[in-house]
């Protein structure tokens, strides 16, 4: 669909950018099909696929029966037969029923057939908390999938990154889990190139350069970190890294930064224990041990079930917790 006047004047939201990437890839490659619950006439519960069924028809933007394993399993079959399916799982918490198909089949097929059969699919999943959603609609399971050999895991948080990374994911020859932080879906607009482009999977972004301490984060937490940095005294110089891709991790960007600053705080919404922050913290001690001036700190969700929304803001890492952690790490 052509861009609206608002988009032309004020830029695209994350939802607009993802929609545009989907439309451009479907136009470019007729093997690309979208399948999921309510993705057709309804345009998805977050309207991410709005208008696509009108353009590409019911055979390419497909409303499926309500069955996540069925969506993932048939998407695998489509990919095996040479299509480029983009299954949508409506919410993070509903990945559970599709887990077996995604991890035991999609992730393993290239290696178990030594390259004879491959699964180029991109599963799109809204992720994370902060939008007052019902139970099982606010989880952050990225570490589970990063721990699954054979999957790539991506979580962009800006419209520009989302469009470029989604395009790269759709063109990728391997299965990609594409997490969309739902808190950011419509939180702001930015100018996004109208033509198609890719941003390579596996590259972090230095959001702001600094010399005193490195903050590593991803997803909606990037904006909490920016807010936290605003709270700090002006003479404190923070380097903020948006990981963008969880797996494969961009180790070089983190290592270069931490070797420079000697201090690091990692921020994520997911529970602390075995969260992806644990992996980053380990990598930092493996690669930067002799450069560290303070223990690496983690500001994360708790090892609890994600609470219902009355308590969700108490659960999610916010600017205040992040700023405190940064202050403590600087004072060490």
């Amino acid at each position, binding site marked *: 669909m052509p861009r609206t006047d608002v988009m032309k004047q004020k830029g695209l939201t994350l939802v607009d950018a993802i929609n545009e990437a989907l439309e451009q890839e479907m136009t470019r490659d007729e093997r690309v099909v979208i399948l999921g619950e309510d993705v057709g006439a309804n345009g998805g519960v977050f309207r991410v696929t709005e208008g696509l069924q009108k353009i590409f028809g019911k055979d390419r933007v497909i409303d499926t029966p309500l069955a996540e394993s069925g969506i993932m399993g048939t998407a695998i079959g489509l990919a095996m037969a040479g299509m480029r399916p983009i299954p949508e799982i409506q919410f993070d918490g509903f990945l559970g029923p599709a887990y077996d198909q995604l991890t*035991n089949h999609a992730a393993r097929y290239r*290696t178990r057939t030594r390259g004879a059969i491959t699964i180029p699919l991109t599963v799109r999943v809204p992720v994370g908390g902060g939008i007052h959603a019902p139970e099982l609609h606010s989880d952050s399971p990225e570490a589970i999938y990063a721990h699954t050999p054979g999957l790539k895991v991506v979580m962009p948080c800006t419209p520009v990154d989302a469009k470029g990374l989604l395009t790269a994911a759709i063109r990728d020859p391997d299965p990609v889990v594409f997490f969309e932080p739902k808190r950011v879906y419509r939180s702001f607009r930015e100018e996004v190139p109208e033509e198609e482009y890719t941003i390579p999977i596996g590259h972090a972004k230095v959001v702001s350069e600094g010399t005193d301490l490195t903050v590593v984060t991803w997803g909606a937490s990037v904006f909490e970190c920016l807010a936290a940095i605003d709270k700090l005294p002006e003479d404190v110089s923070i380097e903020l890294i948006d990981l963008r891709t969880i797996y494969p991790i961009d180790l070089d960007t983190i290592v270069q930064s931490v070797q420079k600053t000697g201090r690091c705080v990692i921020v994520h919404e997911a529970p602390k224990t075995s969260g992806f922050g644990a992996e980053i913290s380990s990598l930092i001690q493996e690669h930067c041990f002799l450069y560290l001036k303070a223990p690496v700190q983690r500001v994360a969700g708790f090892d609890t079930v994600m609470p219902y929304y009355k308590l969700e803001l108490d659960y999610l890492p916010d600017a205040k917790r992040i700023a405190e952690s940064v202050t403590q790490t600087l004072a060490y």
Partner: protein
Amino acid sequence: MPRKSVYKAEIEHIQVMDENGVIDAAQSRNTLSDEEILELFKFMQQCRQLDEIAFKLQRSGRMGTYPQNKGQEAAAIGTAYAAKKGQDFLVPCYRENAALFMHGLPMHYVLLHWMGDERGNQIPEGVQQLPLCIPIGTQMLHATGIAWAFKMRKEPKVALTYFGDGATSEGDFHEAMNFASVFQVPLVFICQNNQWAISVPRESQMRSKTVAQKALAYDMPTYQVDGNDLLAVYKIAKECVDRARGGGGPSFIEAVTYRLADHTTADDARRYRDPKEVDMWLGRDPLIRLRKYLETKDLWDETKQKTHEEKCKAIVSEVVKTAEGIEKPSFDDIFDYTFAAINPELERQKRTARTSSLGQDPTQVGLTAAAEMANGK
């Protein structure tokens, strides 16, 4: 208001050739010619020979766990013969080797798989099938997706998927049946009801009187056939494949058969199975009735049997030699085949796989690094 019936259905059981090799003339139309029966009988024996040798390879420590196919060959061959080799697509579990061989999989691939080598799954170019599927019931969704792609691209191809009676308890089975039905994909579901899911008999697996009736919920044409009767299996499979190819959507076949061997070589069915039941089914072996039939037609005799057995042994012996002659895979393969292109972390792990510091930056390991740092290097 009076109650009224809104749905009625029945399940047909089809048998063409009985246990004594006698054909029901009325049922035998659109089945196989005697020449075809002869060829398939010979092929079935070759597959049986491989199965027996695979068992012996495991017992003598030359191969890992193996699930014998013995007794179920008619269900595999009858369905696969109804499909077009190189065009239609087979999605197996692991007890229909004969179908895979018929559609072009070199026999040593299956041995390689059970010898613990992924290259047994590296399906050769042009062979239209997926490799064996070990977890139960997940593959029918893949078959549904594959058949769906054929429909999307308007290709005249059909997919066939195999599974056991136990698999029909899995959620994925029902999701596959529903998707296939809703999207009317060209797919034939083939349940090899061999009566046992490891140690659990069919009656404890489901209350349904037939497996076939499960397809009624998805409004699919559904049949129960004598799965040890090659002609019945072929006749119904051909009908289903032709319907699917013509745009008539999916069908369901329950092939009633029996697992004559243990679940796998790691199992001992004597713990849970009545030997009398096994004896009864030994008499229903598909090879026995085919031989009886061919003998009454003067197409087979003891001399031919002996000659053919020797031929099968020679073929299978070559297959074993091929499988055992393949050198151990390269350890690098596990890194190189995780993704299309290796990523930096995997590259580091591959490079340091044999060191004490997996993936660690060498300049950050041990006392050397500390000393260098202290010396300002």
